[in-house]
């Protein structure tokens, strides 16, 4: 029967081993060799866009990379989606929403009127463009223009 000492060794040993593996995998997946984010394209504009994104807590309503408030649309690939809907004018549409001094309420759900300057709105669009180019292991296709459908229903269509 397991003794208390053995149980403690299991806890401490297991924790140490898994944590070391976790650190190793962290280093591996954040190294330049495995980069999926095109980090060379991380311009000053993109970084400013991220700061605007954070300082207004956009994530409190929207999702980005699938993370956020689930109250407003996913913004990964938003430029592509709006380009398709508005004949290639996706960036302009986003800017006009961000620069609007009046509230924006698609389908009645309200968004705060941020009244951003042209420069600020341009930075946010640059941020969205950078996000849109990241390799998301398949999630980009799920929320992008050519949305993937369930593998099961795909089979049905093919048959």
């Amino acid at each position, binding site marked *: 029967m*397991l*003794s*208390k000492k053995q*149980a*403690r060794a*299991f*806890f401490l040993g*297991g*924790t140490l081993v*898994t*944590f070391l593996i*976790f650190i190793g*995998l962290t280093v*591996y*997946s*954040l190294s330049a060799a*495995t980069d*999926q*984010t095109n*980090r060379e394209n*991380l311009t000053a504009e*993109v970084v400013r866009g*991220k700061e605007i*994104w*954070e*300082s*207004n*807590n956009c*994530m*409190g*309503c929207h999702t*980005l*990379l*699938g*993370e*956020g*408030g*689930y*109250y*407003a*649309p*996913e913004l990964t690939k938003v430029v592509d989606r709006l380009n398709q809907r508005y004949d290639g004018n996706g960036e302009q549409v986003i800017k006009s929403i961000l620069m609007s001094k009046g509230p924006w309420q*698609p*389908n009645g*759900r*309200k968004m705060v009127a941020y009244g951003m300057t042209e420069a600020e709105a341009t930075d946010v669009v640059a*941020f969205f463009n950078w*996000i849109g180019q*990241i*390799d*998301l*292991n398949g*999630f980009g296709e*799920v*929320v992008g223009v050519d*949305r993937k*459908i*369930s*593998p099961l*229903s795909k089979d049905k269509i093919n048959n």
Partner: protein
Amino acid sequence: MKYKSQKVAYWFFALSMLLLVLQMTYGFIMGFARFGFDNLHEFIPFNTARAVHTNLLVVWLLSGFMGAAYYIIPEEAQRELVNVKLAYVQLISLAIVGVVAVVGFHFNIWEGRKFLEIPRPLDYLVVVNVLLFLGLILTTLFKSKRRTTTSLVLSMGLLFAALLYLPGMLPFDSQVTDSFFRWWVVHLWVEGVWELIMGGILSFLLIKLTGVDREVIEKWLYVIVGLTFLSGVLGTGHHYYYIGVNKIWLVVGGIFSALEPLAFLAMALFAVNMYRKGEKKHPNKLALYWTLGSAILSFVGAGLLGFAHTLPQTNLYTHGTLVTAMHAHLAFWGAYAMIVLAIISYALPNLTGRKLYESSRGRAAFWLSNIGMIGMTVAFGVAGVAQVYLERKFKMDFMVVQKEISIHFVVLILCATMFTTGIVLYIIDFYKHGRPTDEALEINN
């Protein structure tokens, strides 16, 4: 109550109750906004309500954990806290940080990083506050000759929770790296060190309520927290599937996330078995309800419902939908909210000397809040699954889908009303116990 200094726990519990009420209020604001009643939008837009709702959850749970530690540690260490006045200073500063952060959220002052919205200057205050708390707890333990596994596991959980707050303060230019380390805080708290805290509190309550030998309970405590870390640390990978990092996390996260329910299952089996083994019939049945309820519902909410959408194949479609909200509500309720309510239910009669644990109000509070929360979880789940199919499979527009599923938020509000009724009854019970008193020192349970 055995030591005078344990009384400080009462005020941490009272702060918890106050913040819980505020948290629920903002939850209602969000619930109503989801089906069109967002009349408060000018003053409290959704992102403000959400930041308040989630951050208050963290603060009230932390306040509850701290209260639990101030109650448990003197009893385990068999001595008074080293400095009670500083414990009150720590309480007041915690309340101030919480209130300032919440007020700031209404004026666009935040960091805008999910769950870690508290602005940077306040982060430093949080660090000072937690250091003060840890200093008091660890010095009390250090000065005692008696160091039990329960107190060590609880303190280790609190210490690592403080350390893991730090990666969340690192600045990154890349959204991906930022998100990566944000999960070091959020996931490793919730599915790691907070489970140590939960395990420590659970173990203390089981020793007191069932009378099973401490050695037996503490041995299994090690096994459970061992399983938690074995699966939970690498299970962090399920947050990394689709945020722009290497595919290796699909394999590692997938395998270890699938093991995570085992730790919760072990905890549920452990609690129920100890209860069955126990020969002591403690009169505080309410505390026992909350304790066993916590162990069982944490398995359902955190374990099963977590597993339901952490397989990479499923998560590809459920990632970023209301399915996450379904899992999150029952997981936080079962694992953490209920264990805090359990320790409060156990400690209050001992702190105040008023044994109100036979009241029907207390039982109604337990059942109404639990049935209400399960109903809320189902409402989120139905809305989430419908969202996945309509938006992700049938390619419908996000807002069109939101209109389609808005009826589920009416159900959510109804269930939330039942939940709130339960919590209000619990708080009435809390209030009826009165203040802690030295006269209760003679009551040893």
